[in-house]
């Protein structure tokens, strides 16, 4: 009987892997403009209200379990804002339309065919589809994200003791992102050439401060082939040479922060490293807002063009002082294929419109809540003038709270969607040497 069931599952997987549920133009419309016919309404939740210890029980259903716990404990208060549409760039929507019906999953996780640009699976996920979670993961991986290229310059990470609020260390970075393929808006598109190793994405990180890690640089090359591990190069200022890194250790605490390399942007590993399960769709509060209307922190950063980063508060200064809005959310769980992985699963709360992951909860091997990831998404039309009209949900403030260690790492961004800041020449090994002198 068990054997028959397995055969049935395999057969179903094969059927579902093909574009059996071919998406339609209406699916695309629904996927990118979910609030066209109105914003979510949940009884008891309204713009302008503050959710705190006194009323959290009444709105528990729109909070993820970790945020509910934080508010209940009095660690943080949530200010609710209006739901706003984060329209992605029209070029990405058009690329999605152009790819309709051409994308299908391979025989095993990590393999996808026909995905050249745009959202691979714009149709609504179905609980009946055993690979729905994996499709949502692909939608995230090939999401519009930062667009074709962008920079976070500068980017402040603060390592904080959550009990005392003491900032133990502040690291100032520049981060740069570049898509080699799946490009839709910045010329050239859909791909940069030449690209002999079929790179999908480059990430370049440069440490500006403090002195002991100044000039440390990291270059990550991610391949189109999801089954292949990244190539990573590290330049250490005091060695003045480029070291290759072994990249399998994605659970490494990056530069001693509370963030695993695998945690970046919500998930930064291979699709094939996880089993993905779609758990449902619901309306929830997510940290998405207009940057220019938030409380800002001139002490950390203020520059000639008047830009300031988002302020932090709450217990230990571990939470951004921002507003949250009701959003359509896909709840997805990922559990590691590797039985020795230090976590048992992550709960991802994916924003259905942008396919960013503003909220994550990581569970330890025992199944207890371990870490809470928050990345605030700022609307590009209410941010830096040059971000207006880019259609990028701008990563604007992050917090990773280690709930067991009472420690957190926070991030304050100056996100800039400007191709001049991230030319392809920045994503070369030689650039590490040249910039690190």
């Amino acid at each position: 009987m068990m054997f028959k069931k397995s055969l049935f599952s395999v057969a179903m997987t094969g059927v579902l892997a093909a574009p059996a549920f071919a998406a339609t133009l209406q699916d695309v419309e629904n996927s990118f403009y979910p609030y066209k016919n109105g914003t979510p309404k949940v009884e008891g939740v309204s713009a302008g209200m503050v959710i705190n210890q006194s009323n959290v029980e009444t709105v528990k259903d729109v909070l993820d379990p970790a945020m509910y716990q934080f508010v209940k404990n009095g660690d943080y208060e949530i200010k609710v804002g209006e739901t706003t549409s984060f329209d992605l760039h029209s070029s990405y929507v058009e690329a999605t339309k152009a790819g309709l019906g051409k994308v299908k999953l391979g025989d095993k996780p990590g393999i996808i065919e026909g995905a050249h640009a745009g959202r691979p699976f714009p149709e609504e996920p179905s609980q009946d589809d055993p690979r729905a979670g994996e499709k949502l993961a692909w939608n995230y991986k090939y999401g519009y994200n930062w667009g074709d290229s962008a920079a976070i310059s500068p980017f402040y990470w603060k390592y904080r003791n959550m009990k005392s609020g003491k900032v133990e260390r502040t690291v100032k970075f520049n981060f740069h992102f570049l898509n080699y393929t799946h490009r839709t808006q910045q010329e050239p598109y859909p791909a940069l050439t030449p690209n002999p190793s079929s790179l999908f994405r480059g990430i370049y990180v440069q440490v500006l401060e403090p002195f002991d890690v100044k000039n440390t640089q990291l270059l990550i090359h991610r391949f189109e082939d999801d089954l292949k591990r990244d190539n990573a190069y590290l330049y250490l200022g005091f060695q003045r040479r480029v070291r290759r890194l072994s990249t399998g250790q994605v659970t490494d605490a990056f530069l001693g922060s509370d963030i695993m390399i695998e945690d970046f942007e919500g998930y930064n590993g291979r699709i094939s490293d996880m089993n993905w399960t779609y758990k449902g769709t619901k309306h929830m509060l997510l940290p998405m807002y207009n940057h220019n209307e938030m409380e800002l922190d001139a002490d950390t950063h203020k520059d000639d063009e008047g830009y300031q980063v988002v302020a932090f508060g709450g217990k230990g200064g571990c939470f951004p002082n921002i507003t949250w809005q009701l959003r359509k959310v896909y709840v997805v769980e990922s559990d590691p294929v590797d039985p020795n992985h230090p976590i048992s699963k992550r709960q991802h709360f994916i924003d259905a419109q942008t396919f960013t992951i503003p909220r994550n909860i990581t569970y330890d091997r025992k199944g207890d809540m371990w870490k809470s990831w928050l990345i605030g998404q700022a609307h590009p039309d209410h941010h830096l003038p040059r971000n207006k009209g880019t259609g990028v949900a701008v990563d604007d403030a992050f917090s990773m709270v280690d709930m067991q260690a009472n420690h957190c790492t926070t991030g304050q961004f100056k996100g800039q969607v400007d191709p001049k800041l991230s030319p392809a020449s920045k994503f070369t090994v030689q650039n590490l040497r040249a910039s690190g002198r």
Partner: protein
Amino acid sequence: MAGSPTTYAADTEWAGFVENATYVRDGVGLSKFRNTGQAEFSKSIESESWDNIVVNGTLRATYDGVYDLNDDEFGKDATQPYLGSNWHGQDLSTALLTAGTPFPCENNPTLCNNLDGYMDQDEDEAKFPEFNDELDFIRELYISADRQLDSGTIFNVTLGKQQVVWGKTDLFRVLDVINPVDYSRHNIYDELEDIRIPQWMVTAEWRMGPTKVFDDSNFSLVWNFDKFRPSNLGTCGQSYRILDAGCFFTSSTLGVPIIHDVEEPDWDLGNTQFGAKWEGVYGDVTFSLNALHYRQQLPSLHFRANTAFDPTAPLSPTNAPFLSDGVFDIKFPKINLVGGAIDYYSMDMDAVWRLETVYTQGEELPRDTNGHKETDMLRYVVGFDKNMVIPSLGTGSAFLLSTQLFGEHILDHEADMPNEEDNWIGTLLFKGWYMNNRLSPQIIIAHDVAAEATVVAPSISWTPDNHWMINLGLNVKTGGDQEFPWSATALAGQPGINVTEPLSRFTNGPIGVANQEDEIQLTVRYSF
């Protein structure tokens, strides 16, 4: 001025540190009380014709108080009972050679004159090593600029006093030989970044970026037009003198100075050094191919034979196998080097393999007869690096395991060479991070096979905040027991016996010769 390029300068960025390094040596006491101030600046200049124009500079000032605080052991009055008393016992060789003269220019004008500017610092120059005729307090000062070419590639020129680093090897210099090194600062144990001696050079790079074949490709030329400077091995009387060479050079036998003259090449276009490198990325492999014409930075001793020597007559300064005004001349021969390096990420092992190798022509190695022999050399390093998250060690940060095997093959080896025809040194680095990477223990172990010498250097670094760093370490060595026959013992009627001086210093290597330099080391740094 209409039509001229517009140029303006951005703000200058400054950073730096002050640091105290206090080391205590077993049985000796204070061996280092080094106080360093270092400032680094970077100034960008905007131009319409060039991109990324940056002026970089590094200024450094050091005062080492060990010569004031432990002048019994180090300094101009720190005499030794016999040559090499800091690393071996007495034997016939130490009877034939006198003890070295500390800081010869403060004690012996003849020796000072013979050394002729090489490793002849006076005590003040050891206390304040950057304040010398070469203006070493300017550690680096160079300007760099890029030019976008029509092909979409980038041309870069960097001109000034700088370090140019080749290769992929830690601790050893295989390809990384463009700048000489100051071993007097802390033997082989300081970061090369801090002990390379910057040179006035110009580099030109053509950054081709990705091509149809390579993911990255770069061709560069380097021209070291500075006056040649050899590596500093440490003057006799200093607390760190690699191979104890400084004291041997200030020794004498039969009243004749060991060193007669140091022939440092004058500045001349023909004496400048130059090289080329092509490097790139091909799939999972990064590679470089290198060629360099340079000078040997370690001294080569040329024996000054006395053709009138009469072995049947009594030995005297004027009747000895060597000339009466000095036994050896020091020379720095020209070398041609070709080599390369590759590294490869193995996904199956989740580890990086490194290989670096060079072949040289023109090097001169020590030997008993004539002091030296020119020979081709092959050197190579195989490295293995792996980052590992080890939950049982109580941290989520990955540990770094890095091992290397450094090999050296002498192609024209002779039996009277103290260096083995083939020798290997293995190294291991294991480094971990705790408390959000603010606490970092590590251990470095290195073993020299031929020398049968080992160094173990555990340390722990604590970074309480963005400014302070405290490092506490141990540096423990064993070895230094190798002996080598010295033909001069025949003059005392005992040919062919194994002795310590002068040749076994090469057999024992930098680890073995420092066998009595076990230290506890504390460094405190404040960065700004």
